[in-house]
């Protein structure tokens, strides 16, 4: 937790964000032995998709990976419209009867997760859905909790926590909130 990402000082801001690779190791620790050996991983674009790929390679067992873009299921479409780049949801496996781990980089309001669960059910009825997140920043607006959490942080409302990729390595940073929908 020492590798701080420099941020603009804001009242109530933590001294440091967790180091992303350490958070990933902590998340893996919690998932190992608990996630079913045949669980299918579904990453939410874009940070969750990167995370799902890395987890699939690191977790014991065989884990097919799918990706979901929740744009068509978001509850703020009426206020904000569609994002400019909507990715294609790709679930290259049977959802019906599957054990699924939904994966996102940052858990905040819970609205993306709600949208993702709705979309998954349009592909079939899974046996079980768990939720794994790299970072839980609190601030929930829906009764949703993660099954597996890599790290917990407190960040001011006007900032968003962003996962970046540098080659194979993950880094976390904070950015001012844009008009884009919140996680």
């Amino acid at each position: 937790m020492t590798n701080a990402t420099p941020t603009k000082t804001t009242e109530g801001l933590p001294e440091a964000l967790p180091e992303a690779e350490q958070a990933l190791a902590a998340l893996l620790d919690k998932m190992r032995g608990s996630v079913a050996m045949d669980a299918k991983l579904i990453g939410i674009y874009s940070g969750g998709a990167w995370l799902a790929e890395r987890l699939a390679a690191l977790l014991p067992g065989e884990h097919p990976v799918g990706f979901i873009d929740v744009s068509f299921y978001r509850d703020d479409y009426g206020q904000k419209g569609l994002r400019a780049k909507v990715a294609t949801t790709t679930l290259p496996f049977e959802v019906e009867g599957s054990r699924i781990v939904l994966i996102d980089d940052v858990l905040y309001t819970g609205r993306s997760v709600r949208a993702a669960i709705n979309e998954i059910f349009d592909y079939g009825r899974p046996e079980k859905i768990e939720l794994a997140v790299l970072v839980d920043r609190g601030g929930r607006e829906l009764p949703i909790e993660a099954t597996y959490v890599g790290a917990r942080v407190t960040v001011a409302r006007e900032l968003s926590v962003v996962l970046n990729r540098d080659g194979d390595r993950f880094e976390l940073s904070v950015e001012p909130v844009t008009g884009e929908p919140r996680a």
Partner: protein
Amino acid sequence: MLRTSPNPQLNADGALQHLLTLEGMPAEIIERILDTAVPFVSIAERDVKKVPLLRGKTVFNLFFENSTRTRTTFEIAAKRLSADVINLNVGVSSTNKGETLLDTIDNLVAMNADMFVVRHAQSGAPHLIAQHLSERQRDHIHVINAGDGRHAHPTQGLLDLFTIRHYKHEFSKLTVAVVGDVLHSRVARSLIHGLRTMGVPEVRAIGPQTLLPTAVEKLGVRVFHDMRIGLAGCDVIVMLRLQSERMKGSLLPSAGEFFKHYGLTADKLALAKPDAIVMHPGPMNRGVEIDSAVADGKHSVILPQVTFGIAVRMAVMSMLAGG
């Protein structure tokens, strides 16, 4: 005609307010529509072919001119977005009782319409409706032109662009031929504007003198009267429907004569590039503008055009209706 601002299709923020024509439509908006259509294609492959974006919205299909196919694809697009769709064949209802176009619109607005999909024999009718809504400050209601007179058919142009990009990946190196009755074709007009805007370096119009608009070169198009010369080196061939009523006048001698010179046959197709694609907006006249063997052959992407048309219309509707 009837323009209040340089581009009444865009709102003050430069976002899409209505879809009336591809003429003057910025390339970024066209590109965004095409990009947005991509994820909608795969929705049709799921068990549940529906997303909740337009849940609770009411879309009126106003067809003052018949078109089963276009109306059906708009209806499917709206339903796959979870909208409620009302189909009005206005040609056979209120206008016969003397109601004006704008009175019809006002009545449907009073029924809480959110979107109008309009086809009309009169060029400019969708513009007129858009302008009327703007004057009444009904900015939350959107208009999509589903074909007006000889003027424009922008969603057909967009689905043609989507199909071309799907098979050819980029526009910047292509030679595209539009063949047949360009004069009467709003499909051709919309496509030519779109192709030019997206940077296609060579657009060709191939047809007899009597079926090409006199100023077609002004659109940035090369004209060919000999189809065999015009098809040489083409990546994309767009065949237009020859409307049978054209044959009754003095524009053409006969369907057989037209087919001989401008019908797409395997031997004429062989003059284009080996990987050329063949498109047609439908409905086809087999044996008039296109030979059956070509329409059903391996170069034909005519049926994928129909499938992509639904995704493109979903993209347009969801870009219009979002906040």
